[in-house]
């Protein structure tokens, strides 16, 4: 038998890995992928609770999250392409124009 908390633990760990990815890597594409990881962790949590309470509304939420993630990925990648065209790299630690 699988205790439901296991799924929550998995989601938490997945979130942690995603967060690590965001803060460790300077490649913006990897950062975007890490964000996808965190979004999936959130989705996993939603679905787990949906299962625990036998509530299919959770699936609708997860659906929305996937759609928003798709939009985010599309715009984020487009921005990266734009940045790359101007600067020839997408290293986030070199993109520090927006500062004081």
């Amino acid at each position, binding site marked *: *038998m699988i*205790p439901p908390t296991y799924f929550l633990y998995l989601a*938490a760990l997945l979130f942690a890995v995603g967060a690590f990815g965001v803060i460790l890597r300077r490649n913006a594409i990897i950062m975007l992928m890490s964000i996808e990881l965190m979004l999936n962790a959130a989705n996993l949590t939603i679905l787990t609770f949906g299962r*625990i309470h036998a509530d299919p509304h959770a699936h609708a939420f997860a659906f929305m999250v996937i759609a928003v993630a798709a939009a985010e990925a599309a715009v984020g990648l487009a921005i990266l*392409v734009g940045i790359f065209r101007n600067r020839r790299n997408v290293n986030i630690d070199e993109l520090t124009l927006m500062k004081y």
Partner: protein
Amino acid sequence: MMLLEAAAHMVDPSTISTSSAPLILFWIFSAVVLGGAILTIFQTNMVAAVMSLVATFFGLAAIYAMLSAHFIAALQVLVYAGAIMVLFIFVVMVLNKDEAPRPMRGLITKMIGAISIVSLMFTLMPLLDNAVPGGVETPSADFGTVANVGDILFNDYLFAFEAVSILLLIAVIAAVVVARTHKQEVVEEGHLAEHEAMPEATIEASH
């Protein structure tokens, strides 16, 4: 996909699962998910990183299926592992540039971040223990099916659904606008802009 279906079939609808076989499957898929995730963030080869992420998403799809979220599991494969990751691959191909190994900057910041994440996990984990006070409820037979989720989406969340579709449309247009070549500028600045851009591009290519 075989594995996924097997996992889905083995799920007992009354509890998350009863026999020990699914637990083994859970461990396997968890390992795939976490391993894929870790590989994703530590890969230097971009294509390999994307592929690891695809593996992660497949694992997650299986986990979703174990939670009786069949429709979402299918979406996960189709949309995430399919569409979105293809987009990533495209961009990686376009950018086509491996991260040059060089000393990590802002080590202290990253250390603080890592400590925060660990601390967050340590605070969160005990809470998760108590997050499920009651038992697991028995879902209806059609829980998580396309019909079931579609019914909810098109009744209770119709507005949100339409809003999301508009959002996607906006995102597509925005992506095109942001990523397109600025032809106007080229026309305005004449050949000068192209000439200026060319040598740099050649240098990059020759690397």
